[in-house]
């Protein structure tokens, strides 16, 4: 923010200059005939240093994830709307949602010639799930029979009461994974899960060549995959802290065939310089815009920008361990807070339209989303009702002022601005004290959340791993779920989730999940705030770029000229 005014003025000047210079070459070809697509052009894209060696089951952050997704192909892939399509899978069949038979396409190979068979998947998934291999995404295999054995840990508590978990698997492989023959993979789950096959396009489920299993760390430097792209050179394509170069995999046959010659990910520690590079056509595409460009990117890049909803949402969580939010009074207070937030205005004014007010606990891009789940009226802005509800709560039990309304949030990344706006909503509409509890780093907030020591509220968010309603409900709100830090628990909600998972059809499952959302709207363990839209811009070298369901750019679909 410290230089927003200057860079804005300069940005406007730069836009003008671009407009002027854009006229010059255009004048030579009147009528504006479209430049032909160059299928061999290598495009450059915004990124940053991946945090881990490039192993699919170990990559859980965006900058490594975008590389891994281009280097590998899984059993399935997602279309731009998040609909899964078969990729390496010939067919995926089940009769009871618990026993799955997957036919792997014949003749698929890694770029080093190694064949991909059903056994490749068995080995890769066993490697990823085994706790001694310490893969970040190992819990993605938690539904498979035998996972509890390979993921077992022993917990030791030291003299100060600190608990350490050490991997102690009681089996090396999951019993639920069997390669019947070269093409047939049989998977047995611990329980029926109707949406299990939806996640097969996620990177944790990608196949790995044998070299990866032999020496994961060395392999992660120069990975060999089977995706639409491959590393540009056998070694050294990843120049640390600088760039990763990928080229088209000429042998790739699948739903994500590259329409350009390659992608070079250039690393930036700050989106500002990248934005300038885009203006100078020194960078071709970026999905991270500096916050001071949110108001200007549509004019800086006319006809060269796109904004699309993604599967990422934000909530304001209210821990049940705060006595002010327990019992009948607590319930009324949670509703009052929700009615007091003017989501529409904050999305427009603070976020410049890069957020859409939430209608549910699941973003609209996810199949099964319903905008009118009973109870979701609580998301409407209604200051009068909010005030009334708060007064009712006060009548039952006065607010304990030793736990004031503080919204724990890290102040970077533009978070302070919207938390301030929400606090002002609370102050003005409810006549109560509310403000941000500021932290320099996200990790500090996480520490408080993990140890259940928040004063009152906290910001929270979820980015979908795979396009499924369950992914937005289970890991976040189910009892003792991995990211349910506020320890919300409602047996009825858990039951509906389980019923949804065991439904025969996706429609049946989603109906159950929507019923489960009714419980959330009743309990309001967190207030849905808004869903994220992803804005991207591209240079004059690119004809069109697009993001997928999760907001990631579909690099392989980019046409360059």
């Amino acid at each position, binding site marked *: 923010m410290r230089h927003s005014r*200057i860079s804005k003025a*300069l940005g406007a000047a730069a836009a003008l200059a671009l407009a002027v210079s854009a006229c010059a070459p255009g004048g030579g070809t009147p009528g504006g005939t479209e430049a032909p697509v160059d299928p061999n052009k290598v495009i450059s894209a915004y990124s940053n240093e991946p*945090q881990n*060696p490039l192993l699919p089951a170990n990559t*859980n952050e965006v900058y490594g994830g975008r590389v891994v997704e281009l280097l590998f192909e899984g059993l399935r892939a997602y279309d731009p709307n998040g609909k899964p399509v078969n990729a390496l899978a010939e067919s995926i069949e089940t009769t009871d949602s618990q026993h799955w038979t997957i036919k792997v396409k014949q003749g698929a190979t890694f770029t080093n010639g190694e064949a991909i068979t059903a056994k490749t998947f068995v080995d890769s998934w066993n490697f990823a799930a085994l706790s001694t291999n310490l893969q970040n995404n190992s819990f993605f295999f938690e539904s498979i029979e035998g996972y509890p054995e390979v993921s077992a840990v022993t917990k030791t508590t030291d003299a100060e009461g600190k608990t350490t978990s050490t991997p102690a698997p009681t089996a090396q492989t999951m019993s639920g994974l069997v390669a019947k023959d070269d093409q047939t993979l049989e998977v047995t789950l611990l329980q029926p899960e109707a949406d299990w096959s939806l996640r097969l396009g996620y990177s944790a489920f990608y196949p790995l060549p044998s070299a990866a299993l032999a020496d994961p760390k060395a392999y992660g430097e120069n990975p060999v995959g089977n995706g639409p792209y491959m590393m540009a050179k056998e070694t050294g394509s990843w*120049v640390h802290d*600088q760039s990763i170069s990928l080229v088209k995999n000429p042998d790739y046959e699948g739903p994500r065939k590259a329409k350009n010659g390659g992608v070079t990910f250039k690393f930036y520690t700050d989106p500002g310089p990248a934005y300038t*590079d885009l203006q100078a056509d020194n960078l071709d595409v970026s999905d991270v815009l500096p916050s001071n460009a949110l108001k200007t990117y549509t004019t800086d890049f006319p006809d060269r920008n796109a904004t699309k909803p993604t599967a990422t949402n934000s909530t304001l969580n209210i821990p049940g361990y705060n006595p002010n939010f327990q019992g009948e009074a607590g319930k009324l207070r949670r509703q009052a807070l929700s009615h007091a937030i003017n989501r529409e205005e904050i999305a427009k004014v603070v976020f410049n339209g890069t957020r859409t007010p939430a209608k549910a606990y699941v973003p609209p891009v996810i199949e099964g989303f319903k905008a009118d789940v009973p109870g979701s009226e609580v998301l409407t802005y209604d200051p009068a009702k909010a005030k009334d509800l708060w007064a009712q709560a006060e009548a039952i039990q006065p607010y304990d002022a030793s736990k004031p309304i503080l919204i724990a949030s890290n102040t970077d990344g533009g978070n302070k601005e919207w938390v301030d706006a929400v606090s002002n909503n609370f102050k003005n509409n409810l006549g109560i004290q509310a403000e941000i509890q500021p932290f320099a780093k996200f*990790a*500090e907030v996480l520490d408080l959340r993990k140890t259940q020591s928040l004063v009152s509220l906290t910001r929270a968010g979820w980015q979908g791993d795979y396009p499924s309603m369950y992914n937005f409900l289970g890991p976040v709100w189910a009892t003792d779920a991995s990211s349910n830090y506020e320890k919300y628990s409602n047996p009825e909600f858990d039951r509906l989730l389980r019923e949804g998972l065991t439904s025969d059809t996706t429609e049946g499952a989603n109906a159950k999940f929507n019923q489960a959302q009714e419980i959330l709207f009743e309990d309001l363990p967190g207030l849905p705030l808004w869903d994220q839209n992803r804005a991207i811009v591209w240079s004059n070298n690119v004809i069109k770029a697009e993001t997928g369901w999760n907001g990631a750019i579909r690099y392989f679909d980019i046409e360059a000229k």
Partner: protein
Amino acid sequence: MIRYIVRRLLQVIPVFLGTTLLVYFMVFALPGDPIAALFGDRQPPQSVIDALRAQYNLDQPFIVQYGIFLKNLFTLNLGVDFTQQPIAATLARIFPVTAMLAVEALAIQAIFGVAFGLVAGLRRGKLFDSTVLVASLVVIAVPTFVLGFVFQLVFGVYLGWAKPTVGAQAGWGDLLLPAVVLGLVSFAYVLRLTRASVTENMNADYVRTATAKGLSRPRVVLAHILRNSMIPVVTYLGANLGGLMGGAIVTEGIFNVPGVGNKLYQATLRGEGPTIVAIVSILVLVFVLANLLVDLLYAWLDPRIRYEA
């Protein structure tokens, strides 16, 4: 002379221990669990977090962590950073880039600063002098990041003379634009220091003597005025070299230079103690050596200065 150098080098040891201990403590005191911060809302299994914590010795008390760091340093095994990359390789990658940038910036400020300052000093009160003085004042008054953004947009975007950012495989030419931005402010200081010093020395007795001896004007200017005017300038440049090597965080950020400043900034954000302290250790050496070099240059510039053994 040799004993003087040895004694100065021995001073490095307490300075080194003091700074690294201090920096390590400050990183240690940073709030928030750096391992948990590597992951977002979706945390990996606790056993993965615990294993990482053990790998980076974060489960140990502060003084043990520092002791392990020192032991590793002396066995030349710096370990890996939070992205599992060997720290030694990182240092070998970032320091040459920043060194190139620093040398380029230093050359710009030294050559142009001294030349302009000398001419301005010799023509005190004339048009050139006044113009240069006002211009240098303007440069000093404008913050570096403003200069950086303006240069980036003017030369990088409008005129297209240079790439707006540096990025991968930085060469001397790529680094020219950030070097100019980085060197400009100090250039103004060097210019003003040289000018003041030259003005003062022009009236010195030895200059009058030299002129009276019938020496040519260039010889008087270069050998007598300029050389004697260099002492404050060299002191300033020497101290500046250390600062430039420390990474101009702002300039490297604006131009996306993959150097020390950028890495230091990222490592601080991530709370990566070992990386930060490894970088700082090298910087301590650079500072001490740069200062030693300056002190040795004094003797050459002014033969009256002698080093007590």
